[in-house]
C-alpha cells in the first residue's frame, strides 16, 4: 500500500504538472510501468475523488486493492498485487544500492584518496620559490646600550685620542677557557648600563662576541651592525681588563698600558661606528652597506638585505611596505635607496616590483603546471597496474590504454588555476575515467557538491542526498515526460 506521505506529495506535484500540462508516461517494460499498472488494474474508469486531498487518500487506498460489488449487491475486496511487487523491488534495489554505495565508498573513494596521497608526496618534493622567497630581510635596530649616556660620555672622551693601532695581547687561552665568563667580565658597575649590557649581550651569539676578541677581524669588511657589536665588546672588554689586570701572561704594567691603548682604540672605533649609524639615519639610508645589490630570479640563492628599522618606520608611516625596497633594489644603486627617494617615487618602484614579480610568477606557474601534469600522469598510469576485482570484471584491463589516453587529454588541458581544484581533478580521473563503468563519479561528485554547499554537513548526510538523487534519476529514466501544451 502506498503510504499517505508518498501519495500526498505525489498528488501535490501532479497538480502542479497538471497546470503546466506535463504528462508522465512510464516506459514499457519497466519497473515503474509494472508498479503503476498494478494500481491501474484495479482502478475504475472514473476516479471517485473530487479534491486533491481525496485523491491522495484514494490513491493510497486503491494501491492495496478495491471493494467490488457482485450482481447480488454483496461486496468483495479485490487485493492488489502492488504490495507484493513493491516489496520484491524494494528488496532487490536495497541490495543493489547498498552494494553500489559500499563500492563507491570502499573501493572508488579509497582509490581517489590513494592517488591524492601519492601525488601529494611527489608534489611536496618539488620545491618552488615564490618571488618573496628570493629575499632574506633582516631589520636592524640600534640597541639601547649604544645610546646609554654613561657609555656615550665615556667614549666621547677618547674621540681625540691619537691611538691608531691596537696592541696585540695574547688572551686566547683566557677567553676560550670554560671558566671564563665574558658577560660577567665586561660589566661596568653602573647598574643601568650593566642591565643594558646584559640585554644587548643576550641578543648576540656568545661565540661570535668571543671571536671578535680573539680573531683577526678585517674591520673594513664589517657593516654597521657588526662593527657596532665588534667595537662595543672590545671596548667593554679592554675597559675591564685595564681595571682588573687579571688575564694573560704579561707583566701587570705592560698589560695595563696595552689594555689602555686598546680601550682607547675601541672607544674611537665605537664612536666612529655610532657616528656612521647616526649619519645613515639622518641621510635616510634604508639598507646597510653589506646588503646585496642584485636580484636574480633565475638563480638559486637569496638576496640578503639588512634594513635600518628606524628609517623603515618612516616608510611605514607613509603606508609603504618592503616591496617598495624590492622594486628599488632592481633599478637603484644601494646608496640611493633612501626614505625620501622611495616616498617621492613610490609608484615607480612598486610598479617595477610588480612587473618583475609578474614575469617571474608566469614562468614559475608554467614550471609548477608542467611538474603537476607530469606527476599526475605518472601516478594515474601507475595506479592502473593493480586493478580491483570490480575493474577486472568490467573489462578495464582491455580498456587501460584508452583510459590513460583519455586521462592524458584531460590532464593536458589543465591550467594553472586548476591546481587549486585537486579534489575535482582526482575525482574525475579515478571515479569518472578509471571507474567510468559505474555511477561512482555521479554519486561522489554529488556528495562533494552537497558537502561544499554546507560546511557543517556530515558525509553521511551528503551520501543520503546523493543516494536519493541516484535513485530518482534511475527511476525517472524509466518515464517519458511529455508536455501536452507543445
Amino acid at each position: 500500500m502506498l503510504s499517505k506521505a508518498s501519495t500526498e506529495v505525489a498528488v501535490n506535484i501532479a497538480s502542479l504538472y497538471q497546470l503546466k500540462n506535463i504528462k508522465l508516461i512510464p516506459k514499457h517494460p519497466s519497473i515503474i510501468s509494472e508498479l503503476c499498472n498494478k494500481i491501474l488494474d484495479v482502478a475504475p474508469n472514473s476516479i471517485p475523488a473530487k479534491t486533491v486531498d481525496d485523491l491522495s487518500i484514494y490513491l493510497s487506498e486503491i494501491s492495496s486493492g478495491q471493494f467490488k460489488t457482485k450482481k447480488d449487491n454483496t461486496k468483495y475486496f479485490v487485493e492488489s498485487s502492488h504490495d507484493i511487487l513493491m516489496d520484491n523491488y524494494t528488496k532487490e534495489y536495497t541490495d543493489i544500492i547498498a552494494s553500489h554505495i559500499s563500492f563507491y565508498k570502499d573501493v572508488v573513494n579509497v582509490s581517489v584518496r590513494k592517488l591524492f596521497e601519492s601525488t601529494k608526496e611527489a608534489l611536496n618534493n618539488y620545491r618552488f620559490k615564490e618571488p618573496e622567497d628570493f629575499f632574506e630581510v633582516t631589520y636592524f635596530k640600534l640597541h639601547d646600550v649604544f645610546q646609554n649616556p654613561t657609555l656615550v660620555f665615556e667614549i666621547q672622551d677618547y674621540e681625540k685620542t691619537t691611538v691608531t693601532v691596537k696592541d696585540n695581547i695574547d688572551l686566547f687561552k683566557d677567553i676560550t677557557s670554560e671558566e671564563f665568563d665574558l658577560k660577567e667580565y665586561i660589566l661596568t658597575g653602573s647598574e643601568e648600563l650593566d642591565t643594558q649590557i646584559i640585554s644587548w649581550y643576550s641578543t648576540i651569539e656568545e661565540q661570535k662576541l668571543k671571536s671578535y676578541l680573539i680573531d683577526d677581524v678585517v674591520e673594513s669588511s664589517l657593516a654597521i651592525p657588526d662593527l657596532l657589536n665588534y667595537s662595543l665588546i672590545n671596548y667593554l672588554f679592554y675597559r675591564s681588563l685595564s681595571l682588573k689586570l687579571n688575564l694573560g701572561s704579561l707583566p701587570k704594567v705592560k698589560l695595563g698600558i696595552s689594555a689602555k691603548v686598546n680601550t682607547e682604540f675601541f672607544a674611537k672605533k665605537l664612536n666612529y661606528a655610532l657616528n656612521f649609524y647616526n649619519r645613515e639615519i639622518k641621510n635616510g639610508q634604508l639598507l646597510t652597506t653589506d646588503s646585496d645589490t642584485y636580484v636574480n630570479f633565475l638563480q638559486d640563492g637569496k638576496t640578503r638585505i639588512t634594513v635600518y628599522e628606524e628609517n623603515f618606520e618612516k616608510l611605514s608611516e607613509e603606508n609603504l611596505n618592503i616591496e617598495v625596497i624590492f622594486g628599488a633594489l632592481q633599478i637603484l644603486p644601494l646608496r640611493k635607496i633612501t626614505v625620501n627617494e622611495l616616498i617621492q617615487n613610490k609608484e615607480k618602484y612598486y610598479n617595477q616590483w610588480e612587473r618583475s614579480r609578474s614575469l617571474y610568477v608566469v614562468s614559475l606557474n608554467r614550471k609548477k603546471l608542467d611538474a603537476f601534469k607530469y606527476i599526475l600522469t605518472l601516478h594515474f598510469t601507475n595506479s592502473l597496474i593493480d586493478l580491483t576485482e570490480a575493474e577486472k570484471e568490467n573489462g578495464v584491463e582491455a580498456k587501460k590504454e584508452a583510459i590513460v589516453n583519455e586521462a592524458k587529454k584531460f590532464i593536458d588541458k589543465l591550467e594553472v588555476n586548476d591546481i587549486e581544484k585537486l579534489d575535482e581533478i582526482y575525482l574525475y580521473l579515478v571515479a569518472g575515467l578509471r571507474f567510468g563503468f559505474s555511477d561512482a563519479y555521479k554519486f561522489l561528485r554529488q556528495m562533494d557538491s552537497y558537502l561544499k554547499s554546507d560546511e557543517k554537513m556530515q558525509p553521511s548526510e551528503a551520501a543520503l542526498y546523493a543516494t536519493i538523487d541516484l535513485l530518482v534519476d534511475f527511476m525517472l529514466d524509466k518515464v517519458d515526460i511529455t508536455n501536452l501544451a507543445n
Partner: protein
Amino acid sequence: MQNEQIQDKTLEEILTEKDITRIFSNANVIANIIELTSDVILNIAGNAISDTIKNSTINRTILANMIGNKIKSEILGGK
C-alpha cells in the same frame, strides 16, 4: 451509461474530471517513485547513509518531501 453521466454534467465538471484523471495518472507514477525510493533508503543498512537516518529525525514524511523536491526540480528543470 458513462456517456449519459457525462452529458448530465456541466463543461466545468467534465474538465475537472479530466484534470482529476490526469492528476491521478501522474500521481500514480510519482507516488510509486517516492515509495520505492523511500523504502530502499529506509532499508539500507550497514553503510554511510544509514547513520544519518538512524541518528536524525528523518522519517517517511520528510523523506517523501525530499524525494518529491528532487523529482520536481528534475522535471521542471528541463529533463
